[in-house]
């Protein structure tokens, strides 16, 4: 292991911040347990660094299929209401965490081995299927937050496989059009942007084709949606996004924002702020740990944390400019994407700019599955940049 020390060091630094925050919010017991998870994660990290990339990549199809099977099993065997956890008797884990890793590996391998990737149906059909299967399976668990990670990573991999931003935008445009179709005004703005992108560098024929498809999907939304019965709409919304409160108030989100705000610039690390102590914030050491962190360390702490995350991602993506085999480059980009997605969605959720979804904050949140799988990701990244 010659390269990638900086990635490792920043990750450890983040984990120590996490341990400290967990200790401050939830006490010694949680600190002890998280430390044990950390040691377990560390062991798997060093194991992964040494593992042959041949095993990782040549078998990536089977890893991928295995995780798809786990995603199907969890739908039948999970005892909880949201079918996310698989119980193996001695421990439980989320198959979606594994699927994220195997998906990145397999898709990188698949895209790298294609001699030619063009912006056409032939090139894109299989990768789209590979993406949609886990997306769909996680969506019906239901875990909206985790499901969207697959299309997100897919876009990043396409970008680094040579597709341009506008091509990716056009590829995703039917989905955007469908989403923006909820309101006419937003859809018109979106459509204007699309007109600009669709005709740039493309033939007129292609451009009109894109607009036609988008109009179709844009209309689909009001046509389908408005014809649904009220209870059907409610059922869909609350199934896909149980946290989402259509009436506009989520107690936990409000409490989280008060906690963040009360930290102000310097934070309250050494006084005893009452909010998280009095259980106003749900899960103060897991999903909502950022709220507690903000309260303890203030804006200064937030700047530090965001910078640390930024340098971590910078260091990871920096290796894409080095001379690496394409499959390693893509895998590194994909794993960076997994981290970026988790960081952004969690921080956005806690600070109130995204809906509450229940994703953990990498390295900081309490929890074995999350910490160990993030360390495995770091291990894989370091393994690849040393190739």
């Amino acid at each position, binding site marked *: 292991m010659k390269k990638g020390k900086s990635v490792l060091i920043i990750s450890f630094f983040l984990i120590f911040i996490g341990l400290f925050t967990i200790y401050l919010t939830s006490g010694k017991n949680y600190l002890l347990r998280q430390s044990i998870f950390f040691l377990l994660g560390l062991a798997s990290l060093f194991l992964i660094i040494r593992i042959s990339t041949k095993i990782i990549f040549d078998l990536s199809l089977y890893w991928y299929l295995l995780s798809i099977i786990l995603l199907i099993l969890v739908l039948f065997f999970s005892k909880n209401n949201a079918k996310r956890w698989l119980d193996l008797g001695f421990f439980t884990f989320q198959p979606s965490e594994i699927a994220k890793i195997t998906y990145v590996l397999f898709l990188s391998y698949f895209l790298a081995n294609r001699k030619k990737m063009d912006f056409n149906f032939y090139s894109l059909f299989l990768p789209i299927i590979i993406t949609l299967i886990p997306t769909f399976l996680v969506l019906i668990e239901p875990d909206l937050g985790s499901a969207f990670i697959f299309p997100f990573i897919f876009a990043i991999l396409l970008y680094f496989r040579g597709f341009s931003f506008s091509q990716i935008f056009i590829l995703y445009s039917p989905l955007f059009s469908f989403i923006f179709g909820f309101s006419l005004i937003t859809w018109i703005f979106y459509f204007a942007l699309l007109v600009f992108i669709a005709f740039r560098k493309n033939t007129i024929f292609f451009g009109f084709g894109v607009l036609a498809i988008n109009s179709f999907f844009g209309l689909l939304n009001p046509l389908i949606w408005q014809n649904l019965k009220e209870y059907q709409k409610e059922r869909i919304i609350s199934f896909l996004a149980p946290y989402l409160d259509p009436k506009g108030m989520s107690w936990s989100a*409000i409490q989280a924002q008060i906690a963040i705000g009360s930290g102000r*610039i310097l934070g309250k690390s050494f006084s005893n702020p009452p909010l998280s102590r009095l259980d106003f914030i749900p899960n103060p050491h897991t999903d909502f740990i950022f709220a507690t962190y903000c309260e303890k360390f203030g804006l200064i702490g937030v700047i530090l944390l965001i910078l640390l995350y930024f340098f971590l991602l910078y260091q990871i993506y920096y290796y894409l400019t080095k001379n690496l085999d394409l499959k390693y480059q893509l895998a590194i980009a994909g794993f960076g994407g997994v981290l970026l997605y988790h960081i952004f969605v969690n921080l956005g959720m806690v600070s109130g700019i995204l809906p509450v979804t229940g994703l953990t904050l990498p390295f900081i949140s309490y929890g074995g599955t999350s910490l160990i799988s993030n360390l495995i990701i770091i291990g894989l990244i370091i393994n690849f940049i040393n190739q």
Partner: protein
Amino acid sequence: MKRKFKNFILFIIFLFSLIFLRVFYLQVLKGERYERLAYNQRIRKVILRAQRGKIYDSKGFLIADTKLSYNLAILTQEVDTNFMFQYLPKILNIDLNSLREKVKEYKNYPYPVLIKRNLSKEEAIKLEENLIFKEGIRIEITPRRIYPFKHISSSAIGYLNEVSKEDLKDTLYNLGDLIGRYGIEGYYEKILRGKNGLALIEVDARGREIQPFSLAKEIPAIPGADIYLSLDMNLNLICDSLLNNYPSGLILGVEPNTGRIIIFVTKPNFDPNIFLGLNHKEWQKLIKNKRKPLFSRIVGGVYPPGSTFKPFITLQALTKGIINKDYRFSPCYGKYKIGKRIFKCWQSHGSLNLIDALAYSCNIYFYQLGMKMGLKEILKLIKALELQNKSNIDILEEVNSRVPDYQTAPLGKIANLSIGQGEISLTPIKLAQLYCGIFNEGLIPRLHFLDSIKNTKFFHLTFLDSLIKKNIIKMVINDKKETLYQYIPQFYPMPFSKEAIAIVKEGLLAVVKKGTGINAEIGSLKIYGKTGTAQNPFGKDHAWFIGYGEKEDKRLLILILLENIGAGGAYAAPLAREIFLRYFFKNEEREISFNN
């Protein structure tokens, strides 16, 4: 790759600056305000209590209604307890000790704690004048349950109670909410209950409300769904008064071709209106009452069926070809010797065929029939009818019936069993259900109170789904384009031949025409029936009567049980006649008015 790298880093910077700007907004621009909020907890949650769904009878009369009431609540964290202990008992009729206990129990509870329900207008005004400016004392306006029919059919309707700490584990409930405990109110709790709303209110340092919290909109309360029952309260009212002359008893009326329960009346009973605000003492008094007003006799009591069991013995014997319609045993001389014991009949009937044996309920005929069939055949009958199983009516108080647990028995026991005595005790509901089968071409209906559910909301769907899965209700959209959930009648076949059922029906017709049930006879109408006397080791026998009549498309099966009174034919049958007359001839829509 370098250019892509740079672009991607810009993308990350863009995402992270969104987060940074948001946190900056919260911590720097709004920081002072949030710090204040955080440290003083100056946002209070106010629960907007949901209105419970209404219950209607089959004619649309309100059985359970919700109206507004004034309640006194306190915030234990903010209230000046000394002041309260001193002044509150002066203004209200309130028990100081239980008040102290409540304050202690919910010391750190962040919501208002209910102290007294249903304040009168005068009390509310007095409170407003004296205490409203005191911190932490408030008057809440909440929905209140009213039962216009009072004690009528109370064992079917049930009552409400305040939620316990155990109930609060379900996050849909808040302290002070009401929960259905019994009868329909209990069984359909998940349908009837609404969903409480929530408002966040900023309060000042003295606990006074300043303004709604601006970051959040109020969540309005969502009312519960309404339930329509098959009960005919008009008829229940009449039946209840028919029972007035008897210390304890019950009347059950069912439509055999649908399983709809029309009449469900017991004596003694209770007034569900009094349960709210009942203190511990009054509650104990009600529970320990020797007449057991809370005991749901129709579904919770088990009684020997007595002679009402004879038709089923007959059905089995006919189906298996053991006897036929004209079969005669040794004549009845009022006494019959089995082994060394002498078994009696209530009269000396002479030689009887099957129809007359049923009509005059001759025990000696059935002793001989039972012994001819043998114990095995009787046990088979009990098993095939699933006698011990519940009828699965839609209230929770139902118990299992009791059946013999032996495989061999002396002849005397077998003889006893064949006239419904001995180790066999049935709930009235189960017995009525079996009789429905006889009058519904051998199809036993599932019994139910529920007709339809209306005005359902989204959060009811889980429970509705569970009912739909069990094939109990189906969704329909009526002409007014309302979505409602309708009960689906269900039947399972009796293990008897069609011919056997026809013969037994002939016998049951003879019971009323000339036999023991003659007191139920109505000249212009075919009335079927069976009397019975349930031997009671603790006192006088219980009187059974089960009757059935039909006119045009109206059908009604009535089961009457009068406790500790004597023979069924003499006491119970005349009541049935009265009810049949009302149901088939005089039951024109009349207005019922009640004052609350």
